[in-house]
């Protein structure tokens, strides 16, 4: 194992009943590294990210954060979840709260910030993500792109050390994808460690330090994007990229 890894996945296994979804995933992710997971639907990308966030308990193997095993059965996941932000495909915003309340909730209740402190920080984030005029609106009154930016702001409000982004543009109209990707670019330029599952091959190529291909719950290959896209080693990867190319998404 690599001591400097921000996150280290070691032989991670996860099944749902008799269905093996993750079949021994091993990967070391460095501080400030951006990893893009690609693979066909059902290959286990979401499950992997959910496991890293401890939303799913893994069956075997280990997940280390700064060298500490956070996947130990029985451990309280809450202190680690605070340090790992997650953004979902369908935003998962709280519909009964305003944008500001969505963002300020966790800092207040989890970090114990005062209402003013949390709101100030939330407003700052809202401004940074270009949503200033939306602070007091409700999620259902926003466009998909705006909602996803709020979801990112909500995660960032906890000052996470790692961000997990699960197909965050898949539910968006094409013309709204750009505004969300811009935010991810900004996160990268600030040195955020990120694991993202994506179908946007162009974006994966642009933003990631390594692209990992997931197939039937295994990482078949993992390499820098230039290499990954021009010289895929594995036959399955070649087939997948071919399909994506045929579908006009590369």
């Amino acid at each position, binding site marked *: 194992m690599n001591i400097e890894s921000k996150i280290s996945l070691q032989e991670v296994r996860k099944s749902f009943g008799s269905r093996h979804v993750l079949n021994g995933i091993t990967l070391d992710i460095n501080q400030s590294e951006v990893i893009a997971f690609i693979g066909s639907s059902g290959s286990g990308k979401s499950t992997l990210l959910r496991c890293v966030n401890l939303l799913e308990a893994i069956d075997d193997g280990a997940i280390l954060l700064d060298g500490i095993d956070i996947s130990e059965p029985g451990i309280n996941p809450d202190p680690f979840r605070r340090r790992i932000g997650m953004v*979902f495909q*369908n935003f998962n915003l709280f519909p009964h709260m305003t944008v500001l309340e969505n963002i300020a909730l966790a800092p207040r209740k989890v970090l114990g910030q005062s209402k003013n402190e949390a709101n100030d920080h939330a407003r700052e984030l809202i401004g940074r993500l270009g949503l200033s005029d939306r602070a007091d609106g409700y999620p259902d009154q926003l466009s998909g792109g705006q909602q996803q930016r709020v979801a990112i702001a909500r995660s960032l409000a906890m000052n996470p050390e790692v961000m997990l982004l699960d197909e965050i543009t898949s539910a968006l109209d094409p013309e709204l994808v750009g505004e969300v990707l811009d935010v991810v670019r900004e996160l990268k330029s600030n040195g955020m460690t990120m694991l993202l599952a994506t179908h946007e091959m162009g974006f994966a190529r642009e933003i990631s330090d390594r692209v990992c291909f997931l197939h039937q719950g295994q990482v078949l290959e993992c390499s820098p994007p230039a290499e990954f896209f021009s010289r895929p080693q594995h036959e399955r990867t070649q087939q997948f990229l071919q399909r994506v190319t045929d579908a006009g998404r590369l």
Partner: protein
Amino acid sequence: MSQPGVTRRQAFERRQKRRSVLIAFTSTVIVIGLVVALVPQTPGWYKVKRSFFDGAVLSDTFAKLLSAFVKDIQIFLWCAPCILIWGMTLAVCRSVRTPALFPLRLFAAAYTDIFRGIPVILTILLVGFGVPGLGLHRPWNSPYLWGSVALVLAYSSYVAEVFRAGIESVHESQRAGARSLGLSSGQTLRYVIIPQAVRRVIPPLMNDFVSLQKDVALISLIGPIEILRQAGIDKSKYANFTPYVGAAIIFLLLTIPETRFVDHLMTRERRRTSGTAVR
């Protein structure tokens, strides 16, 4: 041809509105007219009219009924918050998945099964006659107290089920969203799940409370002089059923505005949190 200052749609909507008002008015007049014309033709009408719709008896008894109804409202007002709190507690107990709290879940499940399965009137009779039978002294033998306790026991089981349905109707992704931020399961329940669940169950909840408003009258069986018992007394005194009609009118005066008010609240809430409405 459109009038000046009126869009095509506005003109269309005005025409539509005039038309529907006209249709609604005509059909109402016809139906009411038929009822008014035909019912007095029935052979027993004059008897029914005398014993149920006697204006003199109504005006004699109405004030007393009204003041007895204050008792119903009081009972309702102290039962309702107890029912809400106890019902929510039961619902939360049933939603908790921690093994250590399994006995709590079991208790809550058994409780709701039992009290939902017993007619309210039986619960009132059993609690209302049973507990004071233990030989308690004042004020602990008050039929108001035990009648209210019986209502709370029965209605909290209905309300618990409504809350539980609401809690379960909140999508799993909301829990994931909250937990991913580091909120504990208790905080997730409190700040994310329950507020959404409560909003969703307000209509069925209000139905339960309108029923409660009516079922308060069942307490009359164990003693308190509230509106139903007062109506019974007046019925015997005048040998006339009109006091019951008076009581019914009084109930309606309260329950109809109640339901309308809730509808109004719901519409406003929907408008506040959602985007454009679909026609």
